[in-house]
């Protein structure tokens, strides 16, 4: 139950923020995360992890299963601890109450979702919270919605992370498919079920797509620098300390189920290490303080992915220590960057410098953080780098990883050191190059207390609070590995390879910093290969372009195109059905009934049909149609249905006269001529459809399944219906009720038509035109006379139908 409260308390608080007193709002708001943090610290000594399992949507396989195991605890402490500091900080960062209300509401909601991710024992639940973090992140990046940069960054981040989330969902569904459950505990009961499955590779790829997008691994990393348009407190919290680690967390959560294969090692090691070095290198090129920190965050996220690649205990330790250390120093540095921006009005390190004197407390926080980042003992960052190097130097690693891993680790560490020094030096110590937009002052206390508290923690944890640290790391490692482990960390373990490498990294980093100018000049030509441009191009140009092209082509509002498509589909369908079934097309019986006279009439009908499409005037077309009808009537007569023939003739006469009446309002000739290509297509379709319609009855007759019903009617006409005309008997006797119904329907329809005609507001013929349905419209150069505008319509209609 308390766990439910852990997740829902921030969410409820988020809804209530608007109701709290505006005066000193931040003091109220931080109450919830602060209390949660204290509660979680209390859980450090718990022997049995808290857990809860409440049925929610059981039919979908979702239960509210939460558990506070070691891994969850480590992350939850970061989430609530940094959350408290950030919310306090933001109270001063935002001058405007309304902005703070909005910010804290979204941030608390995010906090709830993030706690949900780390506590969930159900994969679907993780996904649900996962998507909520994407959305809240989107809202925070786009917080300053007047800036184009913020809007673009927000959209980019949302598209990348939400898309990754959906890939993750697909992976989760596959896991459920293979294992029959979404519950992590049940999955762990049979840990090899996924690895042994034939779907292992797709599952892993989909899960990694989710984790890598969220944790900004190359080539998905580009959204994170773009997300720096968010207010700095949000960047600190989401895009450095917590949300971006959700991907890393997920990998740790699932590693007992997925790790240990070559694919896992290759993908995590490859992408992680490449990201580590790549982002470290390009962090050097940045000039915006936040962009530097963003790239360096990406870099360390790469390291956190890479340490999980071997799936060893050392890697698990390095992960937990690395997450804690990074949250402490990078959180502090981001807060410092925000304070500097707030106090000086710029984040450009080419302008900044010599801030140590006006902002001493901020400087103190920054100093500890940068030292920790560089891995100076005895800070938390030192421990983190040591455990990382130990993992990289693990003798259990096979070739080629036993060379790639240490090499990349050292290069990346050197770059990290350089970045740390640069951040500190260029902002606080180096001489200022120009004027700052604002005269710098020390920030208000809520803004410097955060970095100092984080710094103090970074010092105290490895020195004084070793019990706390050991217990955190032990339980965290146990839950990653899925077996109880006991870990004791020591700052100094004698002179060994990691320590030597660590020292080399610091020295080389200093050296690199000293020669940074020539290095940067050399790097100027280095293409970043930033997929952001490709992404922007595909999302902003290619996709809408394709969409528009498709729309123009397929959805142009022309009935003609619509009909051609439908007919084309019908053609394909019928012909493929005939081909699939492999049946006779023509029955001999049909050929046996060959009648030369009927055949001659058929030929005439065909000629008529062709002529009808060619003649230039409306009247001749209609006359030819009439002749066609008469010929068909003749066919009926030949085959012994004089009444049918008579009916047909009557209808032809009536239709013809109606046409002639209507033509009174229309011009004589079809003035609109289609282009030749279009005509050719139409002819092709017409012929194909004609062939198909001919084939259909032929095939149907050739493949009769049941005997014909005609004979029954003929035999029963006299005895049952007392009539010699079978058609008449069918109409009035066998199908008498149907006929009755038809008469009623026709009567009602006739009444309706009369009513409608009388309702017509005026007898004036109206000029209309079909707005979107027009082919190239025919313009009357003499102006819009009644006649021309209505004729345009008619032509289009005729043409379209």
């Amino acid at each position, binding site marked *: 139950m308390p766990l439910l409260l852990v997740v829902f308390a921030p969410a409820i608080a988020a809804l209530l923020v608007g109701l709290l007193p505006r005066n000193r709002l931040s003091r109220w708001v931080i109450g919830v995360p602060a209390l949660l943090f204290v509660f979680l610290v209390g859980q450090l000594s718990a022997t049995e992890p808290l857990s809860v399992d409440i049925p929610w949507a059981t039919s979908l396989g979702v239960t509210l299963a939460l558990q506070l195991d070691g891994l969850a605890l480590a992350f939850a402490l970061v989430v609530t601890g940094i959350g408290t500091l950030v919310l306090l900080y933001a109270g001063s960062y935002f001058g405007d109450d309304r902005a703070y209300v909005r910010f804290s509401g979204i941030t608390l909601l995010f906090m709830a979702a993030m706690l949900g991710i780390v506590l969930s024992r159900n994969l679907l639940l993780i996904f649900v919270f996962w998507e909520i973090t994407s959305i809240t992140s989107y809202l925070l990046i786009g917080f300053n919605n007047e800036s184009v940069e913020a*809007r673009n960054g927000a959209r980019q981040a949302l598209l990348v992370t939400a898309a990754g989330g*959906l890939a993750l*969902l*697909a992976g989760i*569904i596959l896991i459920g498919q293979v294992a029959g459950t979404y519950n992590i505990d049940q999955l762990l009961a049979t840990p090899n079920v996924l690895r042994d499955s034939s779907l292992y590779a797709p599952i892993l790829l989909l899960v990694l797509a989710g984790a890598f997008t969220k944790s900004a691994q190359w080539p998905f990393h580009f959204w994170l620098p773009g997300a720096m348009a968010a207010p700095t407190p949000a960047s600190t919290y989401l895009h450095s300390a917590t949300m971006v680690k959700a991907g890393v967390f997920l990998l740790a959560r699932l590693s007992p189920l997925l790790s240990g294969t070559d694919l896992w090692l290759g993908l995590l090691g490859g992408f992680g290490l490449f990201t580590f070095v790549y982002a470290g290198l390009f962090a050097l090129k940045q000039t915006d303080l936040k962009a530097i920190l963003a790239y360096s965050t990406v870099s360390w996220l790469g390291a956190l992915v890479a340490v999980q690649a071997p799936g060893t205990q050392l890697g698990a330790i390095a992960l937990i220590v690395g997450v804690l250390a990074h949250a402490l120093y990078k959180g502090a540095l981001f807060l410092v960057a925000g304070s500097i921006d707030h106090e000086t009005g710029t984040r450009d390190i080419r302008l900044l410098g010599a801030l140590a004197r006006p902002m001493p407390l901020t400087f103190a926080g920054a100093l500890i953080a940068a030292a920790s980042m560089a891995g100076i003992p005895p800070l938390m960052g030192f421990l983190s780098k040591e455990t990382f190097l130990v993992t990289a130097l693990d003798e259990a690693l096979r070739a080629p990883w036993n060379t790639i891993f240490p090499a990349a680790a050292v290069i990346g560490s050197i770059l990290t050191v350089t970045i740390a020094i640069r951040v500190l030096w260029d902002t606080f110590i180096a001489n200022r190059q120009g004027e700052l937009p604002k005269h710098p002052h020390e920030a208000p206390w809520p803004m410097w207390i955060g970095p100092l508290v984080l710094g103090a923690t970074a010092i105290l944890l490895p020195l004084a609070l070793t019990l706390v640290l050991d217990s955190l790391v032990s339980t965290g490692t146990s839950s990653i590995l899925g077996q109880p482990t006991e870990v004791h960390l020591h700052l100094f373990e004698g002179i060994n390879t990691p320590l030597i490498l660590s020292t080399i990294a610091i020295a080389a980093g200093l050296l690199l910093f000293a020669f940074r100018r020539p290095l940067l000049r050399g790097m100027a030509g280095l293409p970043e290969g930033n997929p952001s441009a490709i992404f922007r191009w595909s999302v902003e140009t290619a996709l809408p372009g394709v969409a528009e092209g498709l729309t123009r082509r397929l959805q142009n509002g022309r009935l003609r195109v619509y009909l051609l498509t439908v007919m084309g589909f019908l053609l394909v*369908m019928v012909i493929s059905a005939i081909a699939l*079934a492999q049946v006779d097309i023509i029955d001999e019986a049909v050929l046996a009934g060959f009648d030369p006279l009927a055949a001659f009439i058929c030929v005439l009908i065909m000629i008529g049909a062709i002529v009808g499409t060619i003649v230039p005037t409306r009247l001749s077309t209609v006359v030819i149609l009439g002749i066609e009808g008469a010929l068909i009537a003749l066919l009926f007569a030949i085959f012994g249905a004089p009444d049918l023939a008579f009916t047909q003739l009557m209808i032809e006469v009536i239709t013809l006269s109606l046409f002639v009446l209507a033509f009174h309002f229309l011009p004589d000739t079809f003035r609109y001529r289609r282009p030749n290509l279009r005509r050719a297509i139409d002819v092709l379709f017409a012929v194909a459809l004609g062939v198909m319609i001919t084939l259909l009855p032929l095939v149907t007759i050739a493949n009769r*399944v049941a005997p014909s019903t005609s004979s029954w009617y003929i035999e029963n006409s006299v005895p049952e219906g007392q009539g010699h005309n079978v058609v008449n008997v069918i109409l009035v006797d066998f199908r008498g009720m149907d006929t009755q119904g038809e008469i009623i329907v026709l009567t009602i329809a006739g009444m309706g038509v009369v009513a409608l005609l009388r309702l017509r507001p005026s007898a004036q013929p109206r000029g209309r035109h079909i707005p979107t349905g027009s082919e190239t419209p025919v313009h009357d150069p003499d102006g819009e006379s009644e006649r021309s505008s209505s004729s345009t319509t008619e032509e289009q209609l005729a043409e379209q139908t």
Partner: protein
Amino acid sequence: MQLPSLSELNLGLTVPALSLALWACILLVIDLFIPRDRKSVTAWLAAGGVVFAFIANLLVYRDPGVAFMGLFVADEFAGFLNIVVLLTAFIAILMSVDYLKRTGIERGEYYVLLLMTTSGIMFMNSANDLAVVFIALELLSIPLYVLAAFRAPEERSEEAGLKYFILGAFASAFFVFGAALIYGATGSSSLPVIVDAVGRALAGEGSSLLLLLMGSGLILAGLGFKVAVVPFHMWTPDVYEGAPTPVTAFMSVGAKVGGFAALLRILLVALPALTVAEGDAVAGWQTATWVVAALTLILGNIVAISQTNIKRLLAYSSIAHAGYVLMAVAAAGTPGVSDQATRAALIYLMAYMFTNLGAFAVAMAIEKDDGSGTSLDDFKGLGRSRPLLAAIMAVFMLSLTGIPLTAGFVGKWVVFQATIEAGLYTLAVIGVLTSVISAFYYVRVIVNMFLEDGEGDPAAAATPYVQWAIYLTFAGTLVLGIIPSLVTNLSGPVALAVASLVP
């Protein structure tokens, strides 16, 4: 010929559907006596009819059975879809009352036609015979043709009616042709009888296979028109844009429900055993529905990106959503999954109903009297001028995308699950990828509302009834999303088991 006695007809089961049609006829007469300026009375009377049918539906479908000697079946499947349709009709009436007034097309016939088509959809849901399906299809379509053109003499509306009618006539013709071919192959039009005949026919020569294949293909085409799947979707955007907005909203849900009901019942009750080659484990129509679903998903979602008008956007998105339902239909072709897939389709339709109607209601709330004001640019700044409306719209958009805690997610979830269960992995992947694409245009609406500058429309005042419609659909979207067990249990026993349908 032996006429059945009245009690054999089992008329009681048809009360929900039939009462609506009868009430529509009576209302047509009553409407004559209602003064021109008080046509909302007709609306309330129509709504009363819908409520009556709703209650009757709840009572009747507790106890499934068949009426009209097996032509009409009242089972949970029909009962569930009736609920969806009746809610749709009710919400559409709510949306119409003020809309008709302010656009100057307030006429009593509107509600009569709406009831008629609703009744047609309910008959579709219950039709157990190809002939009944066809009659229901016409009862569903013809009033809609008129309703689409109800804004006449406005040109777009006339165009909508005309296009819908011409293409719809083709669709009906396809359907009849298909039904005739199936009748030819099996000698019966009754779905439960066809299923036996299919087995016998397939054991014989290839000729009946041909008729069955062409017949089912044509039926798929005919119903594909009604539910607007590629390549029979082309009328959709033009018609949706031109028709009066409440009609569009109704059409986008109601017609689809009817079409899918008939499609599922025909494919699963009559043709589950239709296999192309001997020994095939899955139904022969699975490939066809698979391909159509994939095409629909891809085209519907991609083309929606380039839309600038909310009604057209929702039209394309409704095409895409038909694709998701069709995914479930395709999945139903795998024996053993058909019950689960059917359930998924129904849940999806329910979720889609709330969300899509809601989105249309919001679109209506900002639409101006002359039908303009529905461009996506008109949403700019709405987050500031009308934060609540904008927030609700954002939830609808997220639900259409399929973000958790909304109804849309539950729908997509069950559909994807069924698709994967049926082994259609590629289709599932296409479904997921196109969902990602759909985020692109749904999110743009949200971006426009909250992030873009614009004065919004201070005059955009959703009238009270429209607001009710918005709140109702909003509640439905959230409740379904947060407590999905409500609907997943409701449709628990829904299954198109052939045995239970035979009289």
